[in-house]
C-alpha cells in the first residue's frame, strides 16, 4: 500500500524531469539565444507555477486574411459606439496588449465599455514574403478597418497604433483617412534620425538590407532575436537572477515568465516590408519628411487631421521619446495632445503603472472623443 502511494509522486517527478529535458533539448536544437527557452521549464518547476494565462480576454475572430486575424473583444457593458482598433507591430506578437488578467490594456478598454478589435498578424510565412507596405496598408489594415466598422455598426473608429504598428497605422491614416475619428500613437517612432541605437546599427554603410532580404526572404526570427539581445546582452541574462531571488513569489514569477515568453515569441518579419521599412524609415528618414511612397502615393503626415494622442514612454530605448515627439509637430490636427509616462517601451502596455496611471488617462482622452451609445439604440449583435 505504502509502496503504491509513493509510486505516484515518483512517476510525476520523472514525467516533469522528462518534460524539462525535452524542452531544453528542443531549445538546443533550435540554437535558441533566448534564456527563456532554457530556463522556463525549470523556473516553473521550482516556483510550482503553471503556464502564464496570456491573451485571456474573451474574443472572436471576425476576419482572416493569410496569416492575419482580426480579433474582436466584445464588451459586456458596451458604452461607446466608436470602437477601438489596435494595430500592433510586425515584430513580436500582439498579445502584449492582452497580457495577463488585470494587467491587460485590451481587457481594461473592454471593461471601460469599448468595443475593441486587434489585428493579430500571425506568423508570416513564404506567402507574406513579397507583400509590400501597399499590401499591408491598402489590403489588410483597410479590410480590418472596414470589418471593424461593419461589425461594430459605427461610422468611424479610434485607430490605436503601437510601436512599428503605430508607424504603419500613421501611414495608413495619411492614405486612407476615411473612418478614422481618433488616432492614438503609442511609443511610435516617427523621426528615425532620432531612432536610438537601431538607427545607428542600420546606417546604409554598415547594414545591407537588400543582401539580407535577398538571402532569406523573410527576416528569420534568429536574426531578430539576435538584434534584441545585442541591445542589452548582460541584462538579458542577469535579470533572471531577480526571479531566482523571488522564486517564492508566484505572482512575480508568473508575470516575469509571461513577459519573457512574449519577448522570445519572435516571428519572421515579411521581407519586402522590412526592406522598405529600413530604407525609408531608418536609413533615409523618408517617413517623417513626406518622401516615403506606398503604392505610388506619398505618405504625408501633414495630411492627418483627426484628433491625435501621442503616448510617449520616457525611458523608451526602442522608440526614443525624441523620435516620437516629432509627430505632433508634423500632423495638421488641431486637436492633438501628448502624454508622457515614466516607464519603458513595454511598460506602457504591461507594467503595474498601466491600470492605475497610464490606461485611465488614455481611456479618458478617447472617452471625450468617442460617440456614446444612446439608450434607445441597441448595440449590434455580439
Amino acid at each position, binding site marked *: 500500500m505504502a509502496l503504491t502511494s509513493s509510486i505516484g509522486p515518483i512517476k510525476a517527478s520523472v514525467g516533469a524531469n522528462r518534460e524539462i529535458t525535452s524542452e531544453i533539448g528542443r531549445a538546443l536544437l533550435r540554437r535558441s539565444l533566448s534564456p527563456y527557452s532554457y530556463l522556463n521549464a*525549470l523556473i516553473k518547476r521550482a516556483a510550482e507555477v503553471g503556464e502564464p494565462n496570456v491573451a485571456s480576454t474573451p474574443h472572436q475572430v471576425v476576419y482572416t486574411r493569410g496569416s492575419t486575424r482580426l480579433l474582436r473583444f466584445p464588451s459586456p457593458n458596451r458604452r461607446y459606439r466608436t470602437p477601438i482598433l489596435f494595430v500592433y507591430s510586425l515584430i513580436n506578437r500582439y498579445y502584449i496588449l492582452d497580457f495577463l488578467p488585470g494587467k491587460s490594456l485590451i481587457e481594461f478598454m473592454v471593461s471601460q465599455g469599448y468595443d475593441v478589435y486587434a489585428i493579430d498578424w500571425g506568423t508570416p510565412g513564404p*506567402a507574406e514574403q513579397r507583400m509590400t507596405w501597399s499590401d499591408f496598408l491598402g489590403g489588410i489594415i483597410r479590410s480590418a478597418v472596414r470589418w471593424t466598422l461593419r461589425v461594430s455598426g459605427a461610422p468611424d473608429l479610434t485607430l490605436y497604433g503601437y510601436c512599428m504598428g503605430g508607424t504603419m497605422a500613421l501611414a495608413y491614416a495619411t492614405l486612407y483617412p476615411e473612418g478614422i475619428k481618433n488616432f492614438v500613437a503609442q511609443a511610435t517612432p516617427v523621426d528615425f534620425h532620432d531612432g536610438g541605437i537601431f538607427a*545607428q546599427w542600420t*546606417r546604409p554603410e554598415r*547594414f545591407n538590407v537588400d543582401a539580407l532580404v*535577398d538571402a532569406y526572404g523573410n527576416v528569420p526570427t534568429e536574426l531578430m532575436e539576435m538584434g534584441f539581445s545585442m541591445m542589452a*546582452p*548582460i541584462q538579458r541574462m542577469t535579470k533572471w*537572477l531577480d526571479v531566482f531571488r523571488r522564486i517564492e513569489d508566484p505572482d512575480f514569477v508568473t508575470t516575469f515568465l509571461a513577459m519573457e515568453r512574449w519577448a522570445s515569441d519572435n516571428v519572421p518579419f515579411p521581407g519586402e516590408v522590412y526592406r522598405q521599412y529600413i530604407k525609408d524609415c531608418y536609413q533615409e528618414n523618408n517617413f517623417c519628411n513626406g518622401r516615403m511612397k506606398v503604392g505610388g502615393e506619398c505618405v504625408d503626415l501633414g495630411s492627418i487631421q483627426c484628433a491625435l494622442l501621442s503616448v510617449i514612454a520616457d525611458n523608451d530605448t526602442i522608440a526614443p521619446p525624441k523620435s516620437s515627439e516629432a509627430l505632433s509637430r508634423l500632423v495638421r490636427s488641431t486637436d492633438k495632445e501628448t502624454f508622457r509616462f515614466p516607464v519603458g517601451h513595454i511598460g506602457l502596455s504591461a507594467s503595474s503603472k498601466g491600470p492605475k496611471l497610464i490606461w485611465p488617462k488614455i481611456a479618458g482622452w478617447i472617452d471625450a472623443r468617442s460617440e456614446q451609445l444612446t439608450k434607445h439604440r441597441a448595440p449590434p449583435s455580439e
Partner: protein
Amino acid sequence: MAVESAPRRLNLLARAFKLIGTVTDPAATSSGKLFHRLETGATALLDRLARNDTYLNLAGRMMEQTFLVQAEGARSAETLLHAMRLPTASDLSEVRDQVRKVGDQVEALSLQIEFILEQLEASQKTKGEGGGEAL
C-alpha cells in the same frame, strides 16, 4: 479573524535558485557586490562596443558577406534545379504570390458586389417609401 498562512516550503530546485540569487545579490552578500561590479563593468564595455563605429562597420561587413554567400548558394542551387527542369523555392514563392494576389482580387470583387448590393437595397427602400431616385 485573519488566518496567517505559513511560508511555503521551497523545493530543492527553488532552494538552489534562491542560493544563486542570494550569492549574486549586491544588497545581501559581498559576493553579490563583486558580481554587481563585474556586471556594471561588462555592461559599460559592451555598450561602448555596440556604439563603436569601427566595430559596427566590421560586424556589418561580416554580416553582409554571410548574406551574400547565402544568397549566392541559393542562386546556384536554383540554377542547377532549373537546368534539371525542377521547381525551385523562388518558383514556389512566385506561385504563392500569385495565389495571394488572386485571393486579394476575389476579396476586392466581393467587396464591390456587397457595395452594389447595399446601394441596390438602399435604392429599393427609397422607392418603396414613396419613390426616391434610383442608384
